[in-house]
């Protein structure tokens, strides 16, 4: 079973992401983190198969989390789930090593569209 770390400072949004994963057909084992710093500690302690992260968070942003992971040698597959999907952010995400960026609001279909190619 795929092990996923969902990172978002909003508990409500984490719940929506987990629900949407299930609706998209991904019966993954999910654990949660409420900011980038917490997620970094979580990956260090037990690396998941994939990280889904918000961008804009207190303590440590999603992009700083991704850069910190790569700097520490973690190649964990990483995707953003964020309220902004501007071309600048997509370029920054890709440059930092993100596999995809899902813009909020999203649908189960939007999850499948970006996750299926990664699983393949």
């Amino acid at each position: 079973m795929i092990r996923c770390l969902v990172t978002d400072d909003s508990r409500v949004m984490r719940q929506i992401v987990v629900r949407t994963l299930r609706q998209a057909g991904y019966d993954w084992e999910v654990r949660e983190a409420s900011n980038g710093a917490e997620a970094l500690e979580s990956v260090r302690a037990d690396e998941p198969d994939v990280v889904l992260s918000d961008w804009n968070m207190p303590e440590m942003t999603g992009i700083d989390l991704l850069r910190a992971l790569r700097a520490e040698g973690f190649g964990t597959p990483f995707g953003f789930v964020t309220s902004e999907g501007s071309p600048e952010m997509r370029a920054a995400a890709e440059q930092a090593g993100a596999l995809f960026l899902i813009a909020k609001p999203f649908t189960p279909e939007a999850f499948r569209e970006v996750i299926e190619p990664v699983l393949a």
Partner: protein
Amino acid sequence: MNAPVTTVLDASVVHDQVSAVAQEVFAAMVDGDAGLLLPWEGELPVLAEPVVAWVDLHGDWAGRLALRTGAPTANALARALLGLPDEAEVSHADLVDACGEVANVVGGNFKSLLPGPGTLGLPQVGDVLPQTPGALRLQELPLAWRGQLLAVEVWSFGAQDAPRAAVATHDGPAIPDQHGGGDHA
């Protein structure tokens, strides 16, 4: 120091953009279907227990995107987002979280439509908007979500938008606000 505000927005364009964004966000995130967020018809009620959620945008255009509604509607919104039944109790923390996240997503999508780079602040929730020197309400959309008032407001922190903000106020009266907070344009 913040970069100078250089982008000027047209209030009528903002109206259409924010309306489309709000419809999309509620359809995808809250209701699972389109059509439950409609233009408000008739007189605007006084919000006895106002809940205001907002995010600030900084960059070539600087301003604020705010949602204003009553506590019962905010509770219903939180229940909808959390997938709870109609009679379920909602904690204050979940109410703040839910309303802030809706403002965050509407604000983030609105920001994506703006030219140039910029940043989005973290969402905040209270009963009034904070006073911001020089802020002007550029647009106000009174909407009905499940029949209850939910207004989306766009505030500009840049003087360049001022002439058009004057036009924007002709679209309808301001939402009555017992506290008078934020309505200092």
